[in-house]
């Protein structure tokens, strides 16, 4: 049995497993099935009691032939609040088979298995902080293997459970609640007796819910819809948006998202894809969302401003992305273009929730992709975040002068040019006047500035090695479609679609052993699968440009489909989409 992940979003993925010749999509639901409690007709996976399967305490049936091949081993599971040494004992007594093994969050040692069943899931789920911590601990042990959390999923929380990294759910909570007359919608649970009009048009609601079976089947429909919605969201890279909207219906779920954001950045950062070509809908929740925070962190840690620039011009963001395509930025641009020495001016856009976006990075995910309600109102938290970013940014990047063309005051000494509105006549006049100081500086040529822009962009993408990479190179093309040449050979070109530079084979050679993947001895064509990977640079994230080596020999360049950790660990699935090979 093997699992192959095909699409990833947030901390989760879509993939396929093959069971007895049938391909099953993950994430999925184990539907409980028995003569008394029928599964829904659309069930791919069923959870059933095997009367011949052994019981932990009563092992009479052990070793006999089982009706089913995939058996969850019977285990003794103590409450999570019991001391660790007791969990260790339980772990030692627990059995596993090649398909299933129980993972004990208090003593998370992974026996070799295919699917891990989370012990104490129900108990932990009552406490968001302990739940999140347990999931992260478990994931650190089982890596990218399949994780099943029994007894907690329902139509309201399913996307959130998926988001944190759970792959398999079950219908048990629905069975219990259906028996108690609970009617599910995608956003809540209600007493059937209190519903006068069904907010659903499944066949059971149309006909009228008369008994347990009707209610169960309606609830199953809702659960299935929620699974499909979650899968669609992962495919479309909008799981985070779905999860944020769901978290409004239960503060416990909001806590799960919040705690993950605030306390488990590294866990999530490894998993979140680096690039994206879909709109990111930002909300107040997004300030700490991982891909946004990663952008902020990289601007501070990796990015360096174009060296020749001396005047920092802070500009407001625009609803249209990339900013330079917007009406307001076109106006700003014409003023900058008319200044005496335009390339000594460095434009940096101030925005929420991203923070600060240097003009060269405006096509990079998520700067070019986010969408937020623009009302002109700034929260205190947003202002604080922007000021923090700016402070850290200015500690590292030095300018002679700062011009603030935003309608909000910032915690810096700047020439304020904005009156009322950034595009008002007075504001624009002020801006043009302020930019006249550029004539005091030595003229910076377009060619020089273009080279420096590309270098800054490469620093964001590859870190310090970018400096060595671009040494002796020539940059051609119109922003943002830069092409980088070395000794007349193209090394890289900027892809607006992916928001980063993509490498040629020669580019791979110049980059050297950075963002490297070490493969077995073969020529990588088309795809490199995880099976063929020996090791990988731990910096690699999903979407990164990577160079493929065997020993010291460059074999190809391509796009990472997994992060480095998963490439090394997984034994199936496409790890790299190869673009050029030897």
């Amino acid at each position, binding site marked *: 049995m093997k699992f192959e992940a095909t699409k990833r979003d947030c901390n989760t993925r879509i993939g396929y497993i093959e069971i007895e010749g049938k391909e099953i999509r993950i994430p999925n639901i184990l539907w*409980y099935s*028995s003569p*008394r*409690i029928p599964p829904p007709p659309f069930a791919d996976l069923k*959870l059933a*009691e095997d009367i011949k399967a052994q*019981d*932990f*305490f*009563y092992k009479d049936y052990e070793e006999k032939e089982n009706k089913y091949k995939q058996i*969850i081993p*019977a*285990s*003794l*599971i*103590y*409450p999570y*609040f*019991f*001391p660790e*040494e*007791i969990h*260790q*004992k339980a772990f030692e*007594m627990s059995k596993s088979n090649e398909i299933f093994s*129980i993972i004990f969050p208090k003593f998370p040692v992974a026996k070799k298995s295919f699917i891990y*069943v*989370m*012990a*104490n*899931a*129900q*108990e932990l789920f*009552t406490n968001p902080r302990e739940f999140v911590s347990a999931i992260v601990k478990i994931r650190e042990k089982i890596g990218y293997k399949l994780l099943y959390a*029994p*007894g907690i999923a329902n139509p309201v929380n399913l996307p959130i459970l998926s988001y944190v990294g759970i792959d398999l759910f*079950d219908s*048990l909570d629905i*069975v*219990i609640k259906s*028996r*108690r007359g609970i009617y599910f919608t995608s956003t809540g649970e209600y007493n059937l007796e209190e519903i006068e009009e069904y907010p659903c048009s499944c066949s059971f609601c149309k006909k009228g819910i008369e008994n*347990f079976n009707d209610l169960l089947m309606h609830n199953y429909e809702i659960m299935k819809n929620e699974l499909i919605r979650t899968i669609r969201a992962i495919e479309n890279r909008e799981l985070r948006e779905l999860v944020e909207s769901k978290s409004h219906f239960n503060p416990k779920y909001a806590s799960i998202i919040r705690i993950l954001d605030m306390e488990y950045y590294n866990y999530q950062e490894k998993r979140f894809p680096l690039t994206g070509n879909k709109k990111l809908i930002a909300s107040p929740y997004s300030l700490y969302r991982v891909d946004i925070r990663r952008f902020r962190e990289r601007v501070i840690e990796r990015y360096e401003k174009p060296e020749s620039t001396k005047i920092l011009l802070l500009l407001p963001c625009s609803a249209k992305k990339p900013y330079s395509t917007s009406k307001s930025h076109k106006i700003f641009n014409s003023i900058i273009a008319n200044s005496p020495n335009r390339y000594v001016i460095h434009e940096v856009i101030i925005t929420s929730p991203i923070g600060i976006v240097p003009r060269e990075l405006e096509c990079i995910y998520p700067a070019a992709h986010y969408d937020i309600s623009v009302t002109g109102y700034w929260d205190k938290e947003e202002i604080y975040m922007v000021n923090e970013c700016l402070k850290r940014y200015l500690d590292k990047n030095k300018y002679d002068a700062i011009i603030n063309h935003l309608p909000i005051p910032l915690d810096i000494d700047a020439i304020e040019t904005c009156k009322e509105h950034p595009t008002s006549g007075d504001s624009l006049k002020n801006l043009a006047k302020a930019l006249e100081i550029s004539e005091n500086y030595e003229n910076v040529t377009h060619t020089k500035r273009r080279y420096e822009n590309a270098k800054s962009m490469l620093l964001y993408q590859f870190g310090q090695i970018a400096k060595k990479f671009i040494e002796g190179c020539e940059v051609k093309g119109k922003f943002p479609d830069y092409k980088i040449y070395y000794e007349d050979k193209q090394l890289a070109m900027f892809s607006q679609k992916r928001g980063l530079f993509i490498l040629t084979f020669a580019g791979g050679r110049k980059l050297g052993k950075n963002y490297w993947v070490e493969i077995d001895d073969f020529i990588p064509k088309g795809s490199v699968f995880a099976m063929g990977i020996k090791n990988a640079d731990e910096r690699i994230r999903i979407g990164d440009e990577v160079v493929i080596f065997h020993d010291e020999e460059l074999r190809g360049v391509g796009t990472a489909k997994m992060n480095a950790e998963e490439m090394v660990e997984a034994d199936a699935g496409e790890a790299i989409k190869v673009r050029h090979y030897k």
Partner: protein
Amino acid sequence: MKELEKFAKEKKEYRKKVKKPRIWREKDLLDGKVVNAFVLILRTKGCYWAKKSGCLMCGYYKETYDAEYEDIKRQIDMAYKEYKNEEIVKIFTSGSFLDEQEIPKDLQLYLFKKFKAKKFIIESRPEFIDNLENFKDYRIEVAMGLESANDVVLEYCINKGFKFNDWKKGAEKVISFGKELKVYLLIKPPFLTEKQAIMDALYSVEKIKDLANTISFNPVSIHSKTVVEMMWRKKLYRPPWLWTVIDILKKTKEIYNGVIKCDVVAGGKERGSHNCGKCDKKVLNAIKEFSLTQDEKKLEKVDCECKEEWLDILEIERFLKG
């Protein structure tokens, strides 16, 4: 498991000492007839195992104090003043009556001599059965808590401190001393599902049915300051459904010829064996009647729609735990 033994001990919380014996009267069966019984709870040092570690569900350790010889004698005398020649006298100590550390040997005899009962019922762990040799002249029923005949359940779920075979040796001694044996079986030890609880009870009945004159089932109730109470507060333990109790009683009746009893402590309450709340009274009555009459028909006549929910739990509880 020594880790579980340590945990059970750490979680204990002793409270204010009560030094007066507790006394009440109830009906019981004697040779097939319903008679009056005098129940006496002596305050002693209590169960030695509870002090050393203790069973996870047992809160009786709180009812004890370091009673010395004179204290106990005084308690016996106090109780005797209220004794009205009931045919049966039951003496409980929150421990083992036959443990000399709890009740000195001559006070044990003093008590048997003083009360003119047709039959005494005492309780003891198997470690102390040898002391019965001093009481040849009295009709004594020894009630021995076994809880489960499954060693895994005893060690990992109850922390009983003995294995089935240790217990069985003690039980056989009771018989060889010519005394009657009552066996306590626990219904739904912690960490067992409702379904496993039924399996466990019936397995235990099979193992002891040839030894026991009486089998007394104890559905777990939540004693305060116990590990099981901690679990119950976190909704990680639910006392058995009354349907489980009914099921066990019915099936035991089919395979066992002795007397079957079941006193549902805190029946119908959150802390005791309960159903949905609507049918609890009816079901508890049926169990009570069955205990007194041994007539299984009393168990047949009860039903409620919550039985479906119980049947669901029998099916799915195993999967909920992972």
